[in-house]
């Protein structure tokens, strides 16, 4: 299955990420975000466990992706793989394990300034989960 796809947006970056379940679509959205920032292969030299929560699915996704940006800005850490992602759909919290590398080894070409709620959605169509995000760059 296609993991993610970029769409046209005049000033910013827009993508959709897909998954068999919501966890997979969230995971793939991280890969799309990282792809928007760097093209390099990222080693898995470091592991970080994260937990985020939200008020609904959108804010959970927003906070989850924002965590990725936060790790870049505050720890120079770039995510390579997302593992053990668990989402509680009732209380909107999420835990996951990131593995990745420090940015000094990478070619970085775009700094995503922020995740936005613009055009954001998390939805299930037939058996497929789709999330859409516009990144402010």
């Amino acid at each position, binding site marked *: 299955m296609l993991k993610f796809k*970029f*769409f*046209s*947006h*005049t*000033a*910013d*970056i*827009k993508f959709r990420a897909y998954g068999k379940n919501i966890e997979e679509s969230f995971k793939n959205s991280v890969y799309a975000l990282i792809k928007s*920032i*760097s*093209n390099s292969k990222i080693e898995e030299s470091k592991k970080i466990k994260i937990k985020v929560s939200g*008020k*609904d*699915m*959108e*804010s959970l996704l*927003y906070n989850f992706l*924002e965590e990725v*940006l*936060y790790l*870049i*800005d*505050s720890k*120079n850490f*770039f995510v390579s793989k997302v593992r053990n992602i668990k989402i509680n759909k009732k209380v909107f919290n999420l835990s996951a394990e990131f593995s990745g590398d*420090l*940015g*000094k080894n*990478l*070619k*970085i*070409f*775009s*700094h*995503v*300034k*922020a*995740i*936005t*709620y*613009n055009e*954001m*959605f*998390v*939805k299930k169509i037939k058996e497929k989960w789709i999330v859409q995000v516009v990144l*402010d*760059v």
Partner: protein
Amino acid sequence: MKKEDLKKIGENIYEIAKSGNMNVPGRIFISERMIVEDNASEQIRNVAQLPGILKYSIGLTDMHVGYGFPIGGVAAFDLKKGVISPGGVGYDINCLTGDSKILTEFGQSIPIKDFEKHAHKINIEQNGMVLNQIEFLTRLPTLNFKNKKIENKKIEFFMSKEANEIYEIKLNSGLRIKATKEHPFLTKEGMKSIFDLKDRENLAVNLFEGIKESEIIDKKQAISLKLLGYMFGDGCLYESKKKIYGAIYGTKEDLKVIKNDLKEINVNSNIYSRKRDHEIKTKYEIVKFNTTNYELHIHSKEFKESLKKMGMPLGNKTRQKINIPDWIKNSNRIVKRLFLAGFFGAELSSPKASSKTCFYCPTIDQNKIERLKENAREFLIEISLLLEEFDIKNTRITETEDYKNKYGEKTMRFRLMVSSEEEMLKLWRNVGFEYNLKRQKLANIAALYLLLKKKENEKRNKLASKVKEYKKKGFSLKEVQKIFLNQINKRFIERHYYENSGQRINLDFISFNEFLIEKLNEIKKYGTIFDSIKNIKKLPGKHKVYDFNLEENHNFVANGFIVSNCGVLLLKTNLTSKDLIGKEKMLADALEKKIPSGVGRGSPFQVSYKEFDQILEKGSQYLVEKGYGMKEDYLFCEEEGCMKEADASLVSDRAKKRGIGQLGTIGAGNHFLDVLEVEKIFDKKIAEVFGLKKNQIVILVHCGSRGLGHQVASDYIKKMEDEYGIKNFPDRELICAPINSKLGKEYFSAMSAAANFAFANKQIIIHWLREEFINHFPKSKIEVLYQVCHNIAKFEEYVIDGKKTKVCVHRKGATRSFGPGRIEIPKEYRKVGQPVLIPGSMGTASYVLVGTKKSEKLTFGSSVHGAGRVMSRTEAVKTIKGENTKKRLISQNIILRSGSDQLIVEESPEVYKNIDEVVDIVENLGISKKVAKLKLKIVLIG
């Protein structure tokens, strides 16, 4: 933007005519060639609808689509009536199709599309200016999430647009609504847009729909009518010693509603309580009890007189003839409904189950002395005839003998009963109860119950006839049972297969009493009842959709994303292009090494958290104090490099962590550092004031507040969502707080801190540039020419209609362009106007312009901030080859240092409008004037 929307009113000036709910027209400053099909003009229109907007909603020459507000958009707002909105004020209009009926406070369901007819324009004069405001005469009932009560709120905005994607939601009860995908609906988990709704999710419903008539009734008349009806039941008006008294009886809660209503029409009243012993002789026994009774006394003599005039009988109603006033009988249904609903609030029995799933007939009980028997019957017949107008025809009158009254007179009891569930639905949903919260609640629940019961019966009837149909086709009983295996039990099929039995509700259908408990719990918990979704389907074609904004959302500070204080800094050196010859590559490498992009690597400039707080509060000024620059560095900044309202304690630790390691970094994307040569001087005199000469080397830095600014925005968006909910914000980034609220003020202080971070960030870059230049050019001097902000909302004074007025100007991707004389300009430049810095893109020129007086008149002191993007990043990556861009730069002797090829492509000159053309238009318009053209020598990007 669509060409046909634009009316040319001057060279490079187009107007979007005021239409719909726009408060002002739109003004777009572009050339004909630049008109492209996009949504930017729609955004200009949206901005024009904001309250308190002054003169025009402006789009500058470099305009392109942004979030809500276009990039290159400028709008000024009146300080009292207007809104402040950092995120660009943008709010999408969404939502309901035109046939959606909206319940008004006086019990009418009006199609949302007709509300426009009821809007009436009023001109408000303020500070010498006339503002157009649209006022709606009707208020709408809304649920207050905090106290879980229904309150009537004024409509502030009414909006409409064309939408492609429309969905229809159908509930189990058969209620349905059409809306756009973003339209929020109230669920048990708060507001959700259609996309978030789960299968069978519960949506809040209100079964009361009132009547269809859309004429607007006068508030005073509406309230008087409701009250008159109620008093025909539980009130009295009497005269004694030439004074008139008016009293109304009811529960304390209901009397409070009446009191508030009376207050609305300036009638004073008060609620009194008294303990009373009662002794009532019924025909069975003498009943004794005591109660605390509440009564409301009307104080206004004038109002009591008017009730009398409206037909309120004086004195004891059981001992005199009572008729429904003729004028009500001859009025429209709006008047009749208000009277009846008021009367029913006092006199019509509560919805109550008579068996598991059936209801007692709603009944009006009237007691009268025997000799007025004829009149009692006449009165009930009048009610019955009125009900016919609401299509409630199945009524019956009965009479029985009753107790003797305190005068010893024989009394009789007359009843008007409404039978059949269909009629009950009409009675509860269309006429309803006024001034009786308990019965309103029960009627709402009972109506939902009846609808669900009806749907269930319909389903069973359909199945029953299907069973008979299959029998005719020769299917055996077992075969038919197999077909309907999952839909209904075998016994049902058997019965309808063999017998001609009638249909009754299934035995396992919930009893009304259980249903009632369930729904009363929902009301207690959420303030409303819910019904679950049956299905949602997409409807084909285009639809016009409408939406409102209600009162609570008025006068807010919207807080979105203008926090990065992204801006441009121009440094002048004492070097010329000759000094640079042969050293370009070396300098480029050195600068790339010295000035980090920061992304993923951080900055070598490290400070403690304590010091970082100082930076957030004092901006450039703190760093200059610490020796990282000179006083002139911040004196030549907008705001002198420090927003005084900043408070570091209001910036989250998370935001600080995203910022502390990034001081002195450029960031990536469209942020850059350019070394340029002054190629051409247009205005020698002003160039001299700015300190610019031909062939001089200058440095242009474009960067913002990095991750910190965005984290601040993100943090406060969350706080505001908690405080105010996202109910009325289709675009979640437009969440806002009132400017004077605690949260609003805190946000402003945190945002100012983020702006100071951006100033400080550039101060470190200035410091490093000086260090590096000295290495290569020992005699070099670097001075700040000017630093401007691109994304900011500021309070500024303008002359509007001959009067000095302080307004709040929003510049989203626009540069301030003040002409001579403004106090905000450093005094060295005050005589000529402020420098306006326009960076080009890779391989194109950049410009230094000067602000003008005309910009203050035309564009609230604003000018363009760059060329303006025309191609998306994805499109650029698809169509432009990085190699070609590189080759072209080499051929122009421009040295490029960049993180990646992709970035080169994404920022290629082709993706922007032609800067020379943009600047020419700006000069023709007179909103700023060309001073110097800069030619690119070295560009550091990402």
